[in-house]
């Protein structure tokens, strides 16, 4: 008997893990990466991981990146799986991005404005030429002197808001009862299942930790006509804000952290409706860390998802709330796509039985109707070739694209 039952799964798993660890470490002669190196020299990778992992902890993100062999989706997953075990003590007060200590601030809708434009550190105007000098180590890169006075700078959209030109952000409302909720009642995506239609709070939380690539493509599609999007980058700001909690037992506010955020406000034209005068509307993007591309994409998609609110026709995928919110999470997506690696042989056996049965019936009905000698001969030849192999169902292959393919549900 040549068949050997698949045994020893536990040992195979242990060996696979050991091999992964060894390959991840690489040559022993090459110095090991330190978390501090990852945190500082791969800071944007860390920022993506804290954003999609939805946990602001740069040390743990660096560890996750090291552990995941540089796979950032895997690193975000590691961080999520860890954060879910942490107890929830408090909800913070809303952060005030108007009080942000700016590192960077751009507006494309005014040439100059209070607080000015501040490029900060950016790839935007750097020629994308490979810098071969960087291949050598021990480079020194002195930072230029900073002139900023660290005074808070008003947000650009607030300038428009004073004139009533831009639609105001309303307090959070639930989609169904319209009741205004207090801060404690803000939807919490990490504790509650997504509901559809979702409130804007749930929607923004979903987008904030959504896969960057997914949002980027959706945002791009909306610019190319799959959706109705005419955005201006009202303001992009990156910097630190304070996180403040107000524990009930203390009765006063305590600042517990300073975190880096990227905030994007997209300004979109809106011609008005019977109920609303012509004005600008906004799309909002906010991420942990310096994640400008993601935050911009998020702002575009947020505005697309407000189509219904503004009485616009839903035309493109980016405007379809259920489509976007159900498929944005890369921790869920990577799992389900890759679960196809798990054994499915039971369901495949059931399909095999079914397809054989269908083929048998197909063959019988074919033989009844077809009488040309050539075809029968072909069938006989095929038969004799398989004669010793009684388990394989007999002959006559229907054309591959024949409509008798049974319903196939993705097997999970």
């Amino acid at each position, binding site marked *: 008997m040549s068949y050997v039952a698949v045994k020893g799964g536990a040992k195979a798993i242990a060996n696979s893990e050991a091999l992964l660890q060894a390959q991840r470490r690489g040559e022993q002669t090459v110095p090991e990466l330190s978390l501090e190196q990852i945190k500082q020299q791969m800071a944007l990778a860390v920022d993506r991981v804290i954003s999609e992992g939805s946990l602001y902890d740069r040390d743990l993100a660096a560890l996750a990146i090291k552990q995941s062999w540089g796979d950032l989706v895997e690193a975000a997953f590691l961080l999520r799986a860890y954060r879910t075990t942490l107890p929830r003590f408090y909800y913070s007060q809303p952060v005030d991005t108007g009080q942000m200590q700016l590192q960077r601030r751009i507006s494309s809708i005014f040439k100059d404005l209070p607080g000015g434009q501040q490029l900060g550190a950016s790839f935007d105007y750097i020629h994308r030429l490979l810098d071969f000098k960087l291949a050598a180590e021990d480079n020194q890169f002195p930072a230029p002197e900073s002139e900023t006075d660290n005074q808070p700078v008003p947000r650009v959209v607030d300038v428009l808001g004073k004139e009533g030109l831009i639609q105001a952000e309303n307090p959070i409302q639930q989609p169904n009862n319209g009741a205004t909720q207090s801060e404690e009642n803000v939807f919490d995506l990490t504790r509650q299942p997504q509901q559809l239609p979702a409130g804007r709070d749930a929607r923004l939380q979903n987008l904030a930790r959504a896969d960057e690539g997914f949002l980027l493509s959706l945002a791009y599609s909306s610019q190319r006509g799959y959706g109705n999007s005419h955005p201006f980058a009202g303001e992009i700001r990156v910097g630190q804000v304070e996180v403040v909690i107000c524990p009930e037992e203390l009765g006063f506010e305590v600042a517990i952290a300073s975190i880096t955020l990227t905030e994007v406000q997209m300004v979109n034209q809106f011609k008005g409706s019977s109920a609303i005068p012509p004005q600008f509307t906004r799309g909002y993007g906010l991420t942990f860390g310096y994640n400008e591309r993601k935050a911009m994409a998020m702002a575009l998609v947020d505005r697309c998802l407000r189509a219904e609110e503004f009485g616009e026709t839903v035309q493109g995928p980016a405007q379809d709330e259920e489509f976007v919110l159900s498929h944005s999470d890369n921790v869920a997506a990577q799992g389900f796509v890759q679960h196809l690696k*798990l054994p499915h042989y039971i369901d495949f056996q059931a399909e095999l039985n079914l397809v054989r049965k269908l083929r048998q019936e197909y063959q019988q009905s074919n033989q009844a109707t077809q009488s040309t000698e050539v075809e029968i001969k072909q069938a006989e030849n095929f038969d004799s070739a398989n004669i010793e192999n009684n388990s394989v169902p007999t002959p006559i292959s229907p054309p591959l694209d024949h409509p008798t393919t049974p319903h196939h549900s993705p097997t999970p």
Partner: protein
Amino acid sequence: MTSLTQNFNFAYLDEQTKRTIRRTLLKAIAIPGHQIPFGSREMPLSYGWGTGGMQVTAAVIGQDDVFKVIDQGADDTTNAVNIRRFFEKVCGVETTESTSAATLIQTRHRIPETPLQEGQIMVYQVPIPEPLRWLEPSEVETRKMHALSEYGPMYVRLYEDITQFGQIATAYDYPVMVNQRYLMRPSPIPRFDNPKLNMSPAIQLFGAGREKRIYAVPPYTEVKSLDFEDYPFQVETWDKACEFCGSTESYLDEVVTDNDGGRLWICSDTDFCRSRGKREE
């Protein structure tokens, strides 16, 4: 890995989360076959790899439980091994491969051949909980359809199968009606296993982690596979017997033995096969 048991709560999830899952389970038991949303968590295994079943197991498992995990009917497939060793690690409970000795069985794609008993709990891993999903992609719409018992489209689909193929061409995850009210996906078990769902003395719990849904079939509940009077529901049969134990009434896996199309058939349920005694080694 001993640190895991020290750093994490019994059964991995914190007590608060387990409590919310148990509340969801009670609701699910009270409305057989109805999908209840729950605040599903990230687990240390990928979504789509049994996280729903694992969360249900974590919520109901106790120190006295005897735990069994099967995937494709077998205790020794890598995924079953992996989930079993996870709960060994975070609970330290006794595990078994014997269906009758287990108090709690987590499964993917099969129901054991050995009949379940009162007091046992079956936990099914569910990838897509919504039976109407391939007919209607929108969750908002399918929830309405369930509320209104609007199951006509499913019958139409089965009817179309019959007109096209002469039979219902669904081999697994075959839709069932629970307690004459809710259409339910039995998870991707082969339709061979569907009759075992009906009037089962065990508690049957279904967890879909990625889709954040839990549903249940309480003991002794009617579970009917959809069919028509003139096209009654049928399960598949084999004209082969298990190579090892000679069984002709169990679900058989086809194993390819060589490059010339050689095949043999063996029980998918490894515990059932072993307990019948090996005929051949």
